[in-house]
């Protein structure tokens, strides 16, 4: 890193610098693509988020937890003859009707045990083992973005979180941001500390550099942290970062609290509140992105599903397959993709869970290949090694 760059970062002219940085005119299709990955930590109950209302075994298998059929009081929002959306997901239903959302079901990562932490680690590192790789698949994917998408961006990805999630950790330049409450340090102090870190501590050095850039880009976000749902705040901020001319083109947003071992029943329960927040957050992103929404895809996934049957405490325990969503103006949507395994006891995984019939990597690989333009060979070799069995789905995105 040159001294010039360091001064540019810390100086008061940072924002002006951004505006004056040379921009090379590429076709919109190549430079305006945006990908947002939302990680639902704790294991979303896919059978309540996306009830299989048309499966004759659904209500029995889910006694106590079943979402009523579309049309009934409190019923789901019909997607097709088999599937519905949880009634909390009203905006998502609109996106589905506008053919901008694909709903996946009976889908899971390659993980087949039931530890949240191992399950999340595997899903984020992109290998087939917990701790199988030390960095994240989304970061590795950024290492092979096509030139037009990469050019001019100092950071390729951003995590809307105070700490960097594993999925975005790695060698590719990424940053993070969350709302602030304290007055900022002076540019002079930042310059001095930056010089000290450069001489003594490379890890702190790169973190500070990234933070300075994110703050310069976020200058117009005053008040973003005030009030409202925390997830909506983060998604609103994500829209602003992704709208910066030379800002990141990939964002990752965490959503927590999906581990519904108890209290999954009754009006306005924990799961319902989570789904309302998720739905509102995605809508805030869509609104905030404006015309860029047409070039955007949002991938929503969780580490595993939950037991089909209600447990002893009006909730559900750790399971296997769940649902996932792919939403955005770039998505060729309006359909459910599921090789439905059924809910009869004999069809369940280990006698208790929804059986996985699709692999989350099939969606992620398609998004990287067809939306961001990452080379297929690189995806198979570097981003998702050991994923030969998980072929990317074809046709998930609109063709320009």
């Amino acid at each position, binding site marked *: 890193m040159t001294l010039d760059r360091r001064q540019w970062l810390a100086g008061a002219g940072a924002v002006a610098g951004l505006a004056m940085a040379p921009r090379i005119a590429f076709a919109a299709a190549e430079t305006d693509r945006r990908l947002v990955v939302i990680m639902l930590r704790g294991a979303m109950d896919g059978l309540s988020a996306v009830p299989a209302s048309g499966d004759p075994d659904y209500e029995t298998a889910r006694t*106590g937890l079943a979402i009523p059929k579309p049309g009934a009081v409190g019923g789901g929002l019909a997607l097709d003859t088999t599937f519905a959306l949880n009634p909390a997901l009203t905006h998502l239903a609109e996106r589905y009707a506008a053919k901008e959302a694909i709903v996946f079901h009976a889908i899971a990562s390659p993980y087949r045990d039931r530890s949240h932490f191992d399950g999340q680690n595997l899903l984020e590192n992109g290998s087939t083992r917990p701790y199988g790789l030390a960095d994240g698949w989304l970061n590795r994917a950024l290492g092979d973005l096509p030139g037009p998408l990469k050019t001019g961006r100092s950071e390729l990805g951003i995590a809307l979180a105070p700490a*960097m999630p594993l999925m975005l950790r790695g060698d590719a330049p990424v940053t993070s941001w969350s709302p602030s409450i304290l007055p900022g*340090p*002076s540019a002079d102090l930042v310059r*001095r500390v930056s010089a000290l870190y450069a001489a003594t501590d490379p890890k702190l050095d790169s*973190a500070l550099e990234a933070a300075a850039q994110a703050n310069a880009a976020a200058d117009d976000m005053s008040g973003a942290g005030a009030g409202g749902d925390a997830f909506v705040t983060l998604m609103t901020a994500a829209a602003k970062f992704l709208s910066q001319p030379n800002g990141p083109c990939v964002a990752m947003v965490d959503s927590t609290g999906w581990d519904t071992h108890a209290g999954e029943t009754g009006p306005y329960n*924990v799961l319902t509140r989570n789904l309302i927040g998720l739905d509102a957050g995605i809508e805030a992103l869509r609104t905030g992105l404006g015309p860029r929404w047409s070039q955007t895809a949002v991938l929503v996934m969780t580490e595993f599903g939950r037991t089909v049957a209600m447990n002893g*405490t009006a909730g559900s325990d750790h399971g296997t397959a769940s649902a996932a969503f792919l939403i955005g103006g770039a998505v060729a949507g309006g359909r459910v993709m599921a090789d439905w395994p059924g809910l009869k006891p004999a069809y369940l995984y280990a006698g208790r869970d929804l059986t996985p019939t699709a692999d989350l990597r099939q969606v992620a690989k398609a998004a990287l290949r067809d939306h961001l333009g990452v080379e297929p060979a690189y995806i198979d070799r570097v981003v998702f090694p050991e994923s030969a069995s998980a072929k990317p789905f074809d046709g998930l995105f609109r063709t320009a």
Partner: protein
Amino acid sequence: MSLDEAAIAANRFGLGARPGDLAAIAGDPRGWLKAQLTPETALPAPMMRLPSTAAASGEFTKWLVSLGIGAGGDPGKLAALYRNGGKPADMSGAGGGAMAGASSGGGNMAAGAAQPLSVEQSYVKYFSAGYADAVQARFQTAVASERPFFERLSRFWANHFTVSAAKPEIITLAPVFERDVVRPHVTGLFAEMLLASCRHPAMLEYLDNYLSIGPNSPLAHNPQYLPKYLRDRMTGLNENLGRELLELHTLGVRSGYTQTDVTNLAKIITGWSLYGPNQARGNDLFHFVDFAHEPGPQTLLFKTYPDTGEAQGVAALVDLANHPATAHHLAAKLARHFIADDPPPAAVDRIAAAYSGSGGDLAKTAAAVVDSPEAWAPQAAKLKTPDEYLVSSARALGGLPLTGEQIVALLDRMGQRPYWPPGPDGWPDIQDGWIAADAVWKRLEWATALSQRLAAANMDPTTLAEASLGPGLTPATRQAIHAAESPAQGLAIFLVSSDFQRR
């Protein structure tokens, strides 16, 4: 005399040196650490401010009563109330009302949306002052402590047995859990801390075990013994605590146990439940409910435990505490905490041997960490957590009069809201968990705000840095402090330097 070792003892094993500390402990830094491996003779004064476990447990009831939505003392009833958005109608239990509520799912959202918001606002209003006071008491204890190694170990074991206010009813219980479950056993037997954890309302509620009942227990066959409002909430097994006991508290994940072991341990500890605050005698709310216990022998890790009621669980937990995988799991965590993110295997093996050789004596185990040569490497390998960073800043400055609300806000922004870890695996203990751009920036903001506030105090930053870091103050940092444009700026540079942020 070793100032080098004194600085390592105070900063790597302790919570940071206060002015004068390094000279005081330089005569025998290792002896200073080992002298702290004794039980507390008295609780630190700020800890006495916290309510008793029974009172803390009762606060959730009082809050619900204050809303006019429930007067019972039963925690199951209370949790049910809260999770239903506090609607009294849900408590009638008439004609399978709870089931009807379940299947209406989000259908009543529009009707329910306004009321739960007011429940949540009421929650914040009711609990914030006590929460902030508990946070301040913990901070004051740490900043003033003459036994900072003991305090670090208390934090370590509280994080090992995580209970989190991310679950609303835990907010008053997490601080008293650390005081009443962790502190008494920091230098005692791990098995006793494990048993105390499994009997405390914080853990039993956080991981749901108080509601879990054996599928073949008398209660499962005779639900009429349950109050109506609990019949739909307590119908069978919940394996949450059983799983985390194996995965997090004892053996460690991927150590060879199976889903059957998880289920069987969950059955073994069915009936480990709670008295309501109004029923309890004294401060112990633990209640073994015989008629909720799964009858019959259970097999765990190839050993069969006969059904001896509560003693079945005690036997299983003691065996888990003494298992070699537990020794290795705990040793690796201790070495990761005090030595390096990737702990040296030789040190882990020695610490595990000390644990096993002493029957799980945590004082002897901690002494083995002190005796590890790897722990005394001159290069600081660990990044301080936000909590360690804030406490050590206050100690370096000779104390800071922060309010509880200020501490909460600061630690929240640095990514570590007190008593609020995201999941049962607790806070991360590797630098990648804390060194994200935003977190590093928040530390710089804090150092800036603090140094501006202290500008009038006429502190010499170089003197403070020398007193805090001793020989750990590198020439580069010393030069940067010296070259600062003002003492305040120099103080900020000291506080954000790598020398101070690492330990």
